[in-house]
């Protein structure tokens, strides 16, 4: 057990280091701005007094490394400073919206993971049949479509033509859970379509890879029925790649969510990020990027750790 803890600890440490490097990149890229933030906010016509005042207010008179340390220590306690445009606290703008985004991603994940894995196994079983070919073309199409294409098609049919679900996901505090699920169904379905396709293909590849190994051949030669070969012989070894696939795709959800939120006007963190980018509201952009990157790294770490836990061979690296 001790060596597992050590390995997991190593991975966590590595993740922290990467996160630290990314925070440095995110912070110092803003420093690359021609002129500085104050100049960018106030524009070319700003007077010298205004510039100095704003610089003072934002703490720009201190050297960059000092400001980075201040920003980082604030970020650890979820204090990302104030927005340039509205002057509000960034954390209060982001907080609730981050929960909304997490809810949407979780909603999509709960639907897509079981569907994708069972379909992936089914397709691997029926490989090279007509069913497999059709599934291949369909998943490829779904992966290749931009998220907004799928989203608008769903709006066109489910909201405008058949009037089944609302097209715009407006949320309010006093909604019942059923109402909430109904309102967020279309954005979640868009994400599900993309992620299921990815996950199915990866699950199929993982299972087929396994089915080529000698012990499966042995089981088959013994006369074990095909379904039993999959469930009893292949699946226990397939968990590691499948866990990997799931975690990687959840990480993929993180980026997909930005476009989907914009399509459905969903009050999530992606929408905040896009607004902040077009208004050049740097503290908000930095905070959102850091949050997205941290989630991404966390999920990738989960994939790593899951693989280590389910595959004993990884516990004793050569």
């Amino acid at each position, binding site marked *: 057990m001790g060596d597992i803890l050590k390995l997991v600890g190593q991975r966590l440490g590595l993740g922290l280091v*990467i996160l630290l*490097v*990314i925070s440095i*990149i*995110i912070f110092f*890229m*803003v420093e*690359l*701005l021609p002129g500085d933030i104050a100049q960018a906010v106030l524009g070319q016509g700003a007077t010298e007094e205004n510039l100095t005042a704003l610089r003072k207010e934002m703490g720009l008179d201190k050297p960059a490394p000092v400001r980075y340390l201040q920003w980082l220590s604030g970020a650890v306690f979820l204090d990302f400073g104030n927005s340039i445009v509205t002057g509000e606290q960034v954390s209060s703008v982001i907080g609730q919206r981050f929960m909304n985004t997490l809810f949407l991603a979780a909603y999509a994940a709960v639907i897509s993971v079981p569907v994708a894995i069972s379909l992936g196994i089914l397709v691997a079983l029926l*490989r*090279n049949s*007509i069913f497999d070919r059709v599934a291949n*073309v369909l998943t*490829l*199409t779904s*992966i*290749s*479509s*931009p*998220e*907004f*294409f799928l989203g*608008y*098609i769903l*709006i*066109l049919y489910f909201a*405008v*033509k058949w009037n089944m679900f609302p*097209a715009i996901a407006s949320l309010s505090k006093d909604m019942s859970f059923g109402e909430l699920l109904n309102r967020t169904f279309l954005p979640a379905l868009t994400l599900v379509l993309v992620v299921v396709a990815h996950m199915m293909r990866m699950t199929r590849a993982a299972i*087929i890879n396994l*089915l*080529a190994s000698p012990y499966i051949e042995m089981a088959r030669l013994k006369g074990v029925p095909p379904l039993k070969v999959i469930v009893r012989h292949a699946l226990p070894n397939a968990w590691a790649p499948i866990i990997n696939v799931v975690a990687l795709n959840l*990480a993929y959800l*993180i*980026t997909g969510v*930005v*476009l989907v939120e*914009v399509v459905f006007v969903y009050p999530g963190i992606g929408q905040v*990020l*896009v607004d*902040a*980018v*077009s208004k*050049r509201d*740097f503290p908000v*952009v930095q905070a*959102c*990027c850091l949050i*997205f*990157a941290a989630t*991404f*790294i966390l999920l*990738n770490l989960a994939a790593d750790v899951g693989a280590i836990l389910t595959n004993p061979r990884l516990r004793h690296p050569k």
Partner: protein
Amino acid sequence: MSVFVIAYYSLLLIGSSLAAYFNKRSIFILLFSLTMVSFVLGIIGGSGALVMVATFAGLLALAGMVSYSFREALIMMAGPELAKELRTAPLTAAFGMFVIFTYAITGIFAPWIAPYGEAEVISNAFEPANADMLLGADQLGRDMFSRLVYGTRNSVGLALTATVLAFVLGAGAGMLAATKGGWFDQFMGRFADVIMSIPSLIFALLMLSIFGSSMPVIIVAVAIIYAPRVFRLTRAVAGNVVVMDYIEAAKLRGEGTGYLIRREILPNSMAPLVAEFGLEFCFVFLLVAGLSFLGLGIQPPTADWGSMVRENATLISFGDITPLIPAAAIALLTVAVNFVVDWMLFRSSGLKEQ
């Protein structure tokens, strides 16, 4: 029971009986399952659903025929070596090549194909389609069709430039890292790790927010984001080539690094790199489309598919599908490239599944 329904079923039944008579098993199964599906859908959805199924099947058959003839035409034109390869291409790959070919023609000859200029205002906003404007007007009264044609040039051109730049950077660094080894290799590997651990769309948004969104910034930003992926693959492929005996021989001959990369390593790692180019192009194209959909890509009035979807999105709430056409154009090209890449991967890696 309208005339259409009777004609539809009799055609299907005649087709499947003919296929059965001539022992064409796969065609028979296809036609017969289509008949069965039509029965079920016809009972549930009436003849409206049948028309949809028929249109869909007709389009699919048309695509199949086009790809078949396009493949035959290519085989006729190509030399004997290439023709042999092309004969093994599945219909999906032929379809992909056909679509890519069409897009290339549209992009190159855009000014001759489009009836109006891309920024030319010719009518009222959201004017419906008529004889002059095949697809109607957009939110400022510009011709949708012309903008779609110009969009081919702008969107695909931008994505292609960014992919090429990412490839030059990534593949160059990858091969250099494989030949040099040592600390350079280590450093580049860790550097690629860090960049790849930031989600691509988020990283692109960060860079655009800082440097503003203009063509060169988008190209460089996208290239920086995707170069590490190319680097990883090139490093892995070239790593297998570098340990070969003929590389050792070339080194003993006293050849320099430049010669090794150009004449020995590059030709021997070409096949996976070409397939990777197609894949990367798809990712880049989708990323750029996403950026312009968010209003941060190519700036107006230049026609661009992603922003066209966004600008005309209000039409969707009236049940009009025009804003979906540019989005479908994006999806179609990505699907086409993926089909071709699928075939190339299958061919080059010997990915033959039992």
